């Protein structure tokens, strides 16, 4: 007997994605949809898309979606969550959106303990506008606005979002992952699932930062981009769980 062992998650549309070859947005979209489906959440999911490469995320997800202004997605989600308290809300943001123009919005959503889940794509560069320096661009990294490489003396230092937000009382769960191999993809799906479970249990704010690739603007092949994440990016942005207040019914976490 034939058996379906792999299919498109219910929350994704059957349509080609516009992302560049080797970009990890597509993997993360799929993981969000899989995590929600595993939790039985697809009828009452609301997503907030950012400004950046994922601006058209509503073409890929089947749920109700909002396109937010640059950096304002956490504020839009705050309004949505007040209006639809029983819905499962996810916010999808890149590093320019979240850590630069939207820093106030993400910090205050986190400290209020807003009960939604943020998926934070950190690839250290502005993808959609053509490879400019991001708040998370690493020292020495060449971009179109730091052409000799980011010099902390001239351009300032990168921001570490998980470290920063985990100092706040409001967040329930904060973790940093990658999607560079099967193991890390699975770990990311579990982290996203944990974030959504926190939300379902009304535990408060959850954020999963995913170190991501941008082969086009890294000027690297897709494979070398993955290698760059595993060998360089993770040194500046260590993987792990930065905050976890534990789920209801779980043994208390240390």
């Amino acid at each position, binding site marked *: 007997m034939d058996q379906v062992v792999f299919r498109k998650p219910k929350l994704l549309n059957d349509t080609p994605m516009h992302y560049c070859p080797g970009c990890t947005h597509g993997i993360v979209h799929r993981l969000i949809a899989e995590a929600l489906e595993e939790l039985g959440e697809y*009828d*009452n*999911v*609301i997503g*907030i*898309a950012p400004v950046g490469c994922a*601006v*058209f995320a*509503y073409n890929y*997800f*089947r*749920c*109700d*979606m*909002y*396109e*937010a*202004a640059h950096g*304002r997605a956490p*504020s*839009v*989600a*705050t*309004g*949505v*969550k*007040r*209006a*639809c308290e*029983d*819905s*499962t809300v996810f916010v999808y943001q890149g590093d320019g959106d979240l850590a630069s123009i939207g820093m*106030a*919005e993400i*910090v*205050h959503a986190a400290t*209020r303990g807003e009960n939604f889940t943020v998926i934070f794509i950190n690839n250290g560069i502005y993808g959609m506008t053509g490879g400019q320096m991001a708040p998370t661009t690493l020292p020495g990294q060449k971009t179109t606005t730091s052409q000799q490489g980011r010099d902390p003396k001239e351009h300032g230092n990168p921001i570490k979002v998980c470290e920063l937000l985990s100092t706040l009382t409001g967040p329930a769960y904060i973790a940093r992952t990658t999607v560079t191999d099967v193991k890390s993809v699975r770990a990311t799906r579990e982290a996203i699932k944990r974030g959504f479970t926190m939300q379902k249990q009304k535990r408060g704010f959850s954020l999963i930062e995913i170190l991501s690739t941008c082969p086009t603007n890294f000027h690297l092949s897709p494979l070398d981009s993955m290698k760059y994440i595993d060998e360089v990016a993770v040194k500046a942005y260590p993987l792990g769980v930065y905050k976890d207040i534990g789920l209801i019914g779980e043994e208390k976490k240390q």
Partner: protein
Amino acid sequence: MKKLWKGNEAVAEAAVAAGCRCFFGYPITPQNEIPEYMSWRLKEVGGHFVQAESEVSAINMVYGAGGAGVRAMTSSSGPGISLKQEGISYIAGAEIPCVIADMMRAGPGLGGIQPSQSDYLQAVKGGGHGDYKVFVYAPASVQEAADLTFKAFDIADKYRNPVMVLGDGMLGQMMEPAEIPAAIDPATLPVKKWAACGHNGGKQRVLSSILMNPDDLEEHNRKLTRKYEQMAKEETAYEHYRTEDADIVLVAYGIVARICKAAVDMLRQAGIKAGLFRPITLFPFPYGQLVKLADGGVNKFISVELSCGQLIEDVKLGLYDSKNRPEVGIYARVGGNVMKPEDVADYVRKGKVSSSWIK
């Protein structure tokens, strides 16, 4: 039953009566009583109040709650309204209904906290980036502030467009007897099928203002313009005061119109045939009424305003369509100063008409 209400609190209670259940605010004088009132009042009716980290954030919370179909509101004053303009543009683009109260203070920059009408052009000509319009009501009393705030939610829903209640520091801070409109139950309002609030039965709803194809965006602009033209046809509101036989007509809105009424009475007593024309909607502006007055023989219009020549632009624009070419002048006080009825009457009596407020 009439009660003594402070303007800002009347606006807040009228919003609750209209079914507003989400309010997002940020402190700025002279509108603070609105968020303060909402912070406790909305809890009583099962609504939500959030004090946002900025006006930028507050208007985007309105985008979310309004987009989910709930009657949502924010309020601010000059500098804060400037910060909200980005969000207002997105809200207008995504066609989300909401109500914004602007209790104007004097500018530019941080300016002062005294009454002013210095946000007129920002309010009526769009305010933010891109081609859009905000529907603007200009109440002249605490009673009217309550009535128009109540009505603002219906207009916002009817057109899926932001509606602004444009008051000033005086209207917000003063107390007058007023009756708040009878409260409605928001559950009785028509269902907003377009609202992105989950449980969509498999039919995705997207609220967005991005249209990358020029033809699609042009069509969207065409649709918005049709909406603004329909507003002009169906919702334009104004008041005439002793204009039937007037030679000179003062044009003023909001609290200044109250001052001008007293000035008109003074001038009439002195034998001068003066009248007052008061736009109640500033967008859509009642241009046609100005044309009628000019065609009917009014030969002098004086824009009386608390701004450096903003309202006069719409007065002149309206009169362009008249067969006649009446004189148009301005009498203004700014910076937080407010004219007395005697000042306006004196200006008219002197007979000199200038199109610059400093001459």
